[in-house]
């Protein structure tokens, strides 16, 4: 099966500009997550969709970040306007939601965002 796909893989934008990151989860996965890793630090949770609904958005840093998941398929994460501290690698992950503890999420390769 195809994995979790993220686009673009890299993005360099100027402070104040807008950037939109896209994630295509594994087909049939109801759960979709966004995480972010700032250089050298932990991978931090941003938010969790179940189908098209936001289940948990407690990790979203501020209202400059907007996530959507139209139709419960792909998701976008928009940063507007971008600030220097938004730089990092943004990971998307998806899961079926099974209770089987032998499975974890499947992560995408991430989008490296650099705000200059």
């Amino acid at each position, binding site marked *: 099966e195809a994995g979790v796909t993220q686009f673009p893989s890299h993005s360099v934008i100027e402070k104040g500009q807008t950037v939109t990151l896209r994630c295509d989860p594994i087909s049939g996965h109801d759960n979709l*997550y966004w995480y972010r890793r700032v250089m050298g630090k932990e991978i931090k949770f941003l938010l969790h969709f179940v189908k098209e609904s936001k289940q948990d958005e407690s990790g979203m840093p501020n209202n400059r970040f907007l996530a959507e998941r139209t139709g419960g398929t792909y998701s976008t994460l928009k940063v507007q306007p971008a600030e220097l501290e938004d730089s990092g690698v943004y990971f998307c*992950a998806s*899961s079926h*939601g099974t209770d089987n503890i032998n499975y*974890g999420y499947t992560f995408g390769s991430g989008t490296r965002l650099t705000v200059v």
Partner: protein
Amino acid sequence: DQQVKQNSPSLSVQEGRISILNCDYTNSMFDYFLWYKKYPAEGPTFLISISSIKDKNEDGRFTVFLNKSAKHLSLHIVPSQPGDSAVYFCAASPYTGTASKLTFGTGTRLQVTL
């Protein structure tokens, strides 16, 4: 306040020897623990997990040990291979299963030398 801590940023081990990666957590509500492996320019890949009702889980060369009273878990890789060189992240969740958010540590970079 970091709830999952990996205090060793890096570890170097000779091929064939045992690698031991450690992780401590502070939140007693965590019930499910996972290890992820990450290569450069790739996303984290799920490696192994353990529920708090167990103290050990084994999968091939990888074993995770959980000491709930000490709020400590460790990942053992035996024998270590050069392909194991990567960053390893410990993660925790208050729920068993894959429908909840994870709290990650900062990672430990493992280098397996020849």
